[in-house]
């Protein structure tokens, strides 16, 4: 299914309400790691209503790395 933040077809069902009540479902995107619950506010879970500043339009690999991966040491 479509991710509400990056709009790629990379989201799936993550989990359902643990008490079995069916109160909600959660979804997760494997590309941008956004997760959401189907009972949240419309402006959080409907792509057309979300604040554009919080949409993800970059490529994941272009994001900054804060802790660089150190070169491998020979054993």
């Amino acid at each position, binding site marked *: 299914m479509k991710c509400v*933040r990056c709009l790629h077809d990379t989201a799936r069902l*993550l*989990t359902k*309400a*643990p*008490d079995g*009540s*069916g*109160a*909600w479902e*959660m979804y*997760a995107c494997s*590309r*941008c*790691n*956004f*997760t*959401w*619950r189907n*009972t*949240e*506010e419309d402006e*959080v879970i409907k792509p057309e209503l979300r*604040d554009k500043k*919080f949409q*993800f339009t*970059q490529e*994941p*690999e272009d*994001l*900054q*790395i*804060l*802790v*660089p*991966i*150190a*070169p*491998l*040491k020979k*054993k």
Partner: protein
Amino acid sequence: MFRDLREFLAKLEENGQLVRIKDSIYPEPTIREICRAAVDVPNGPAVIMNNIKGMKGMQIAMNVHGSWANIALMMGLDKDTPVKDQFFNFLEAWDRYPGEIKNIDSDKAPCHEVIVKDNINLFEHIPLFRINKWDAACFFSKSCIVSKDPYDKDNFDTQNVGTYRLQIIGKDQICIQALAFHDIARHVTHAEEQNEPLPVAIALGNDPVLTFMASTPINYDQSEYKYAAAINGIPMEITKALNSDLDVPANAEFVIEGEILPRVRVPEGPFGEFPGSYSGMRLQSVIQVKSISYRKNPIFENLFMGRPWTEIDYLMGLNTSAPLYNQLKESMPEVHAVNAMYQHGLTTIISTKNRFGGYAKSVAFRLSSTPHGISYCKNIILVDEDVDPFNLEQVMWSLSCRVRAEKDVLVIQNTPGMPLDPTSYPAGMGNKFIIDATEPTDPDGLLRDTRLIESPDSKDFEKVIADLQKAAQKA
């Protein structure tokens, strides 16, 4: 004083500092609305919520450290204790380092009452929720994360217990935000250059002092556990993790164990952070979860961060101030008190004796060279030793009547900065802004001849007046 979170919650309840919301609520947006309200009321109480839709039988504790009253109770003080007195009380406790460690057998540790190793789904055991509206996912914002330096595995004191934000990205995967100057980043780097996974344990719902120490900047070779024991005044009870050699808090409500995958980075954030704004998205490390264990009827404790002040400001206020004070005091005994309560010390007020002309400015430079001050302390205000830096009315008086901008205000450009500070650009670079609001001393040009009004000796009458006022209010 408090062996675990439960004992502290009981203490808060005894003192009217804990309330329960029993109404049926949706996790979003109601939890954040309740938390904002709890921290905004005077002497904000802790809040327990136990009727969340889809999460029957689960309970959440919020705002546990969310007022000066709660912090005072954690320190064993009366809930009305003024902040400056809390600061000096904390310094005394701090000097009792190192406290005692007590090892509990793994199979007797309360945190191991229930153990889950197969088909792990964090959401089945923990009532997770989105803290702020534009956060990328559910986060743990108040956990103690334990890790060891792979090159120094047998050293108890370099074992790190720190609070780093954790984004739940799957049933059994968690993204961890480490910044380059964090202790855990050093552990990650050492594991990654060997291409080895790094074992970590995440303890949720701890005794209030351990949580407090996990967000305290201490030296790399000092033990958070021994500090927690010293300040709590009772031995710190730890036990062995189930999957590694790590030591975990034996009385934690939950312990999640896993490994940081070597040489992997995935998108993390945004997350509403302590400056009151959202951090951006970055690539960060991933923890693969191997087990979850918990106490019976566990309490999930988390932290709401909004526009300051919220719980994080109370939690980090004194524990940011105390180590800075101690580090300054070592080489500059003239320093009287340090208030680094504003966004983890981004703004810091120091009261100091001005030993000779320009000395106070040197105190600011010393602050800028402490491990924490290097990147965090950017706005530095210096006041005289008879000004209470926790009393902003007095600080403003100093600014008003002691500062002549052309000689008392300095800006030092392009110094290290704190990446989460929205003014830090590029992220990690910053400036130092120093205001010397102390009275000039020789050979600096003196103020015009000024005679201060002396304060009369009023201490005894403070109690008399307060008691009379209490009686008058009752009548």
